[in-house]
């Protein structure tokens, strides 16, 4: 690959090995991106469900979900628009805890995460199990702001951040992959930042 005339890459001397290819460290900023307007949501009417290919569909209210054993994530997040953010701290519950109560059927291999705004994103089931995914409502020790997906969002930090559905209302388990909002609009079905799976065909 030939290089671009006169481009040196100002930041490369301080490059963090924790940065996936094509990403850069956005520092203390946390950019907000979304396709739809920020919704108005209240915890009084909030619920989260796990449904589809499960032994029993389960739904939790705000109080009920807070009664489950807590889990937290501290690490990096990576946005497909090339910014990465390090040292983020989220608190909530592990998706494993939620799935254990719904009991996925053997045929379940994919998940669609859906939000109260109509947003959807698809993932292999294996990418939300084994400690890899969380439902979170705290950021940095404070309630997650609505602009960043509060009251609660999905968190799947090992994949590009569009998979971490804001304003998430549930997970539907399927036996086939069903492209969600951004995936239908050209983004990758899986979205692994280390393999630079940004767009369909990558």
């Amino acid at each position: 690959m030939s290089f671009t005339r006169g481009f040196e890459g100002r930041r490369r001397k301080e490059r963090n090995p924790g940065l996936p290819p094509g990403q850069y460290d956005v520092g203390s900023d946390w950019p907000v991106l979304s396709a739809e307007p920020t919704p108005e949501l209240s915890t009084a009417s909030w619920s989260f469900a796990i449904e589809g290919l499960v032994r029993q569909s389960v739904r939790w209210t705000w109080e009920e979900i807070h009664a489950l054993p807590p889990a937290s994530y501290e690490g990096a997040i990576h946005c497909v628009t090339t910014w990465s953010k390090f040292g983020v701290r989220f608190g909530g519950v592990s998706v494993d805890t939620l799935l254990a109560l719904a009991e996925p059927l053997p045929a379940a291999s994919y998940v669609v995460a859906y939000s109260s705004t109509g947003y959807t994103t698809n993932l292999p089931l294996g990418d939300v199990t084994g400690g890899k995914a969380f439902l979170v409502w705290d950021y940095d020790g404070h309630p997650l702001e609505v602009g960043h997906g509060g009251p609660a969002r999905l968190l799947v930090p090992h994949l590009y951040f569009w998979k971490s559905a804001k304003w998430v209302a549930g997970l539907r388990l399927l036996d086939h992959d069903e492209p969600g909002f951004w995936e239908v609009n050209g983004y990758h079905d899986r979205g692994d930042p280390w393999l630079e799976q940004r767009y369909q065909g990558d």
Partner: protein
Amino acid sequence: MATVEEITQETASAKSFRLALSQPSRHLAGQHFLVRLTAPDGYTATRSYSVASAPEPSSRHLEITVERLEDGEVSSYLHDVVVPGDKLEVRGPVGGFFVWRGDTPALLVGGGSGIVPLMAMLRLARMSEHRGLARLVVSVRSPSELYYASELPGPEVVVAYTREAPTCALRPPGHLAASDLQGSVLPKATVFVCGSSGFADHVTSLLAQIDIAPERTRVERFGPTS
């Protein structure tokens, strides 16, 4: 790959780059392209830029408008180093949601550099027989910061200055209000909002005041990182 054919200074901090593509690529108004720079040691930096030009029949050219950010790794390179004749690695078009095909009513609301993808839409409207289908409201701080200033004026365009307005302006400077949007709404129009996150949030609350449902609104948030 693309060759830079022409560079135009839009404002003190923004330049438009007219690119000749090596492979034809017909974009839709509202889509963006990726520009990837590669340093001699293989280090790459990629950024996404909205296409400012309407789709062209030959699909061989497009225009992007780039704001030079103070610590922008790619924008400072594009502004300070690139000259006509240079080649850039580009990829696209990308984006399927924030697009307007030109055949339905649209209200375009842009803040500052957010006007770029909306300009592709306005240019598309002006080229076609459906000229009145798109109406644009632009919010900008002062006349010197308005992109495409000589091309914009028209019955379908409203410019709202927030800090400093031209002396002949009827509307005094001030933040965008619901009344600025009201006159530009067409029945059943899809609303395309583009600008900073703060601008997008402000506009969506104004739209709620004039009873435009969120389902009709598409938002693209710009920023130093997006």
